[in-house]
């Protein structure tokens, strides 16, 4: 593992019971690199990034991150290791997952106070600063229910950043949002990328992936179909599976016509 590799997955494999989620996923993420993982649903993208902060254990392979080495299998890492990883890896979820019974401010300072034992004034000051960056300082005393989806997701981003993580994971951060709210969240993520944050994001926003990501990984059928520099993978994919997926995403209408033509002929696929 070279010095600036922050996350390195080697042959990662995950099953739920006998159901294969993904297998043999290998990926190196360098400091300040932005990796976008795209692919059809059910390919195991979300589960894969959940394995990085060990929200899910994995079954096979090795994961090196932030100086820790985790092996797949039954033995789960010690509590101290888990805590260290989770304090240094931030995560933003598809469904925001803000704590509904806590105000915006309380959501953001909870973990810094409780896990990192940051003094309260410092935690509050950082939270204000982060909220200010996403234009939500004035909503700090509101409950999440009162915020729009886009606002909630920006607060969730602040909550993760308040731990001052070294790596950020994004699990489809905009797919639950109304189309007109997507932009505000994406621009906050983009700004973070520009500041040099190391990020792994699962997304369906192709344009965003092309503009922000350094590397794109296409996962399909439970494995990595293709991986490489963002533009290269998205504009001239080499593997047939990647080409097929991108065709469906980038030209959905045409693909629909193909499908209905096939259906007209009694095709099942």
């Amino acid at each position, binding site marked *: 593992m070279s010095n600036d590799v922050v996350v390195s997955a080697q042959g990662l494999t995950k099953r739920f019971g006998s159901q294969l989620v993904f297998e043999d996923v290998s990926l190196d993420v360098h400091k300040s690199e932005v990796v976008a993982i795209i692919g059809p649903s059910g390919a195991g993208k979300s589960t894969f990034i*959940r394995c990085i*902060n060990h*929200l899910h254990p994995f079954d096979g392979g090795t994961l090196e991150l932030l100086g820790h080495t985790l092996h797949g299998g039954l033995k789960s890492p010690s*509590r101290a290791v*888990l*805590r260290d990883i*989770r*304090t240094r*890896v*931030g*995560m933003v*979820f598809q*469904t925001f*997952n*803000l*704590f*509904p*019974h*806590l105000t915006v401010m309380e959501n953001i300072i*909870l*973990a810094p106070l*409780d*896990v990192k034992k940051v003094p309260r004034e410092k935690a509050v000051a950082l939270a204000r600063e982060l909220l200010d960056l996403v234009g939500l300082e004035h909503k700090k005393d509101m*409950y999440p*229910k009162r915020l729009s989806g886009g606002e909630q997701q920006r607060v*969730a981003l602040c*909550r*993760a950043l308040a*731990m001052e993580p070294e790596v950020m994971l994004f699990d489809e951060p905009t797919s639950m949002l109304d189309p007109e709210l997507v932009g505000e969240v994406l621009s906050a993520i983009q700004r973070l990328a520009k500041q040099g944050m190391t990020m792994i994001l699962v997304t369906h926003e192709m344009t965003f992936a092309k503009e922000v990501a350094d590397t794109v990984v296409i996962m399909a059928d439970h494995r990595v179909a293709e991986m490489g520099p963002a533009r290269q993978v998205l504009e001239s994919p080499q593997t047939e599976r990647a080409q097929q997926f991108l065709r469906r995403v980038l030209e959905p209408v045409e693909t629909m016509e193909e499908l209905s033509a096939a259906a007209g002929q009694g095709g099942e696929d």
Partner: protein
Amino acid sequence: MGVAMHYVGVYAAGALKDFGLTVVSTVLSMILGVLAAVGRLYGPRLIRLLISWYVELIRGLPAILQLFILYFGLNQVGITFSPLAAALIWLVLYGVGYAVEIFRSGIMAVAQGQREAAAALGLSSGTTMRKIIFPQALVAMLPPLTSFVVLQLKNTTMLYLIGYADIMYEARLGVDATNQAGPLYVMAAIAYLIMSFIIGRIGMRMERRAAAYR
């Protein structure tokens, strides 16, 4: 009716006893119930199994049989309780059986995403339970908990059968002495209604406060 008025004093004393017993047994059942619910959900296999059997036992046996076995049955093998001790133990044992299930369903009703978000922030499982899961579970649990406390209050009417001198006991004595079954029982009924009304109002207040964020 005039005769019945002589009983207001002893009724009030009896009612206070019932109410006190309900409050104390509720507090104890809740504390043990939370622990048992967490054990039932996250404990080792054996603990989970034992607690689920316990719930079946308490739920399956008529309340009065539990009381009689505890007080009269155990007496036969040399374990003797005072009526007050038996009453308290019975109410707590019974209460825990119900509280476990109420807490368990409340805890399970909290969305999985909340646990994931807490874990991703590095919060310990204890903190997650105390600061994230439990406050949200409480909103779902308060209505059944309120009904449960009222049920416990009503269970105290059975205690006169082991000679615990509560309101029901006084009513029975009064009826035997005066033959005024109508007024005396109605007075007892009113006393119970007032007490359950108070419990209901407290429950509603707590619900409103717990759900303020919604």
